[in-house]
């Protein structure tokens, strides 16, 4: 489960209930089917999980007889760490955020994956020894086209950070990852020179727009704050903007593909997972081109399979970045964040408090 599909922010109560004091309680464990014809997948629920069930889990169970148990769980790695410490691993597959996957990889939370089950030629992002990437997504600038016509809204990060040329309130996530990169791109750093981040410079650039930023507490606010007119321009995700252009989506918004950050969503198997083999079979199924096309027609993100990219519906493809070689785009470096999220996350929090 990743940030852009989540309906709750990373700060909400779920993370808290798995708080520091809860760790020893994990010793008691929770009941999970131990039979080998099942597999346990973590998901936070909501429409994202519904799509996975419809396009991945149900057909997988039909074809293999392996039942998929969905466990609602928070986005962070706290409970995974507790499971690893206590040796009481009850989950198989985790799909959280890319940066967390890389961090978990560094800390040895994941089982090595069997790449022989995957069609490596077909994968958009090559898997590492313990992480497979099943989809990618762009993030960038959104606005209300009824309020801001062509040329009246920012389309690149440099314009997004230019409050003089495009006055108005901006919506941002209060996280370091993404904001730092965006600030540096806005300040003219070339995408290939972004990492390692010039943190001081990034904060200086962020200072320029700080007074016109509305901080989104939860991902849906990236959209709702624009629709309600509380803000003018937002850092958002195309699948969320797509939803506003569908029946019942409220005020339709627009999204710029001129400059984007590109992220990927991971699938990992917990070290010591009870149904390791089934987990690997499910991951392989998850990445099949036909499964990927069905899934992403629904979710509106970038499939992890190259073949799926060509067989997707034209409707869904409208919301996939049109030029996969756009030189303005930046691929987020998950390994960098695995190393630096702690220090930069804390510094971002401090910066927000001042």
């Amino acid at each position, binding site marked *: 489960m990743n940030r852009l599909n989540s309906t709750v922010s990373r700060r909400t109560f779920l993370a808290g209930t798995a708080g520091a004091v809860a760790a020893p309680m994990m010793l008691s464990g929770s009941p999970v089917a131990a039979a080998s014809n099942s597999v346990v997948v973590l998901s936070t629920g909501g429409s994202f999980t519904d799509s996975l069930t419809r396009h991945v889990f149900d057909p997988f169970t039909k074809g293999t007889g392996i039942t998929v148990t969905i466990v609602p769980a*928070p986005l962070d*790695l706290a409970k995974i760490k507790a499971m690893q410490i206590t040796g009481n691993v009850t989950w198989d597959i985790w799909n959280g955020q890319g940066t967390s996957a890389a961090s978990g990889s560094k800390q040895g939370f994941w089982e090595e994956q069997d790449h022989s089950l995957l069609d490596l030629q077909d994968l958009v992002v090559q898997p590492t020894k313990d992480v497979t990437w099943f989809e990618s997504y762009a993030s960038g600038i959104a606005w209300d086209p009824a309020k801001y016509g062509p040329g009246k809204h920012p389309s690149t990060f440099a314009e997004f950070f230019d409050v003089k040329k495009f006055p108005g309130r901006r919506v941002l996530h209060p996280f370091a990852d993404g904001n730092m990169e965006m600030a540096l791109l806005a300040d003219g750093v070339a995408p290939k020179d972004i990492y390692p981040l010039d943190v001081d410079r990034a904060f200086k650039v962020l200072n320029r727009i700080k007074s016109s930023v509305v901080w989104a507490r939860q991902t849906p606010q990236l959209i709702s704050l624009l629709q309600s007119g509380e803000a003018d321009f937002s850092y958002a995700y195309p699948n969320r903007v797509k939803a506003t252009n569908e029946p019942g989506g409220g005020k339709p918004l627009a999204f710029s593909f001129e400059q984007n950050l590109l992220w990927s969503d991971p699938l990992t198997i917990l070290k010591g997972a009870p149904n390791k083999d089934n987990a690997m079979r499910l991951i392989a199924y998850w990445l099949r081109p036909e499964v990927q096309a069905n899934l992403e027609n629904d979710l509106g993100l970038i499939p992890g399979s190259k073949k799926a990219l060509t067989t997707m519906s034209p409707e869904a493809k409208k919301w996939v970045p049109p030029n996969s070689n756009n030189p303005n785009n930046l691929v987020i470096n998950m390994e960098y964040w695995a190393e630096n999220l702690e220090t930069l996350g804390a510094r971002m929090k401090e910066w927000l408090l001042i």
Partner: protein
Amino acid sequence: MNRTINMRTRALFMSPAATIVVAILLPPLLYVFFTSVHGEALSLASFGEVLTSALFKQALSTTLVVAGWSSLLSLVLGFVVALHLARQPARRRAVLMMLVLLPFWTSVLVKCYAFAIILGREGIINNMLSWILGSKIQLPLIFNRVGLLVGMTNYLIPLVVLPVLASLLAIDPAIYRAASIMGAKPARIFWTVTVPLSLPGVFAGLLSIFVMSLGAFVIPALLGGPKDLMLSNLIDFYNGQVLDWSKASAISVVVLAMAFIFAAPLALWRQRKA
């Protein structure tokens, strides 16, 4: 002799609850203490790093200020409610008590989302004001200190009402009668009879709400702004986002110590009175 029996009976009655607390609460608590000094190696490094960080200092001062203000507001508002309830006939009081208890039993999460509807820029209050004044009003009532204090106060008021009401109901009506026969005016009766005799309830309430608000987590996360980071939210940051449980535990120990520091004098005072 009498006293010994009394102590024994007391110990007997308390032992089931005490056993549960010791068995279930103590091991994890000890584990938190252990984690706070055991990161990479056994040391007080986490405490040092946490206590000197600007983030911690800011969160600490926010926590104390928010806990202080929300306790004060809840005390004043809760006292008034308790006073009103104490003056109602028993049957009516039972009905009115429901109005205090229903929000008390409602999940704090549900209440937070309700407040989003009430306090939002397009919320009930702002829409009402806009309608009355005939122009667009968008007071910032949520995702800032105001929203946080409203949420905290709403959450804490029942915890003041219950003990204060108990104290008020325990006052012998004969004292009121005696005071008024002696010619005391209502204001004088209030300050010389009602207030002093309600103090045990007031302190019991104050103690529990202040200690509870030191550990507030959901309300600052959902109704506060980015500047309203409290200690529990900082614990969550270290626990969930950066997985530094040593620092998370160190802050937890600090919060626990604060609760003791504030609770001890009040508890001692109450014991002396008793």
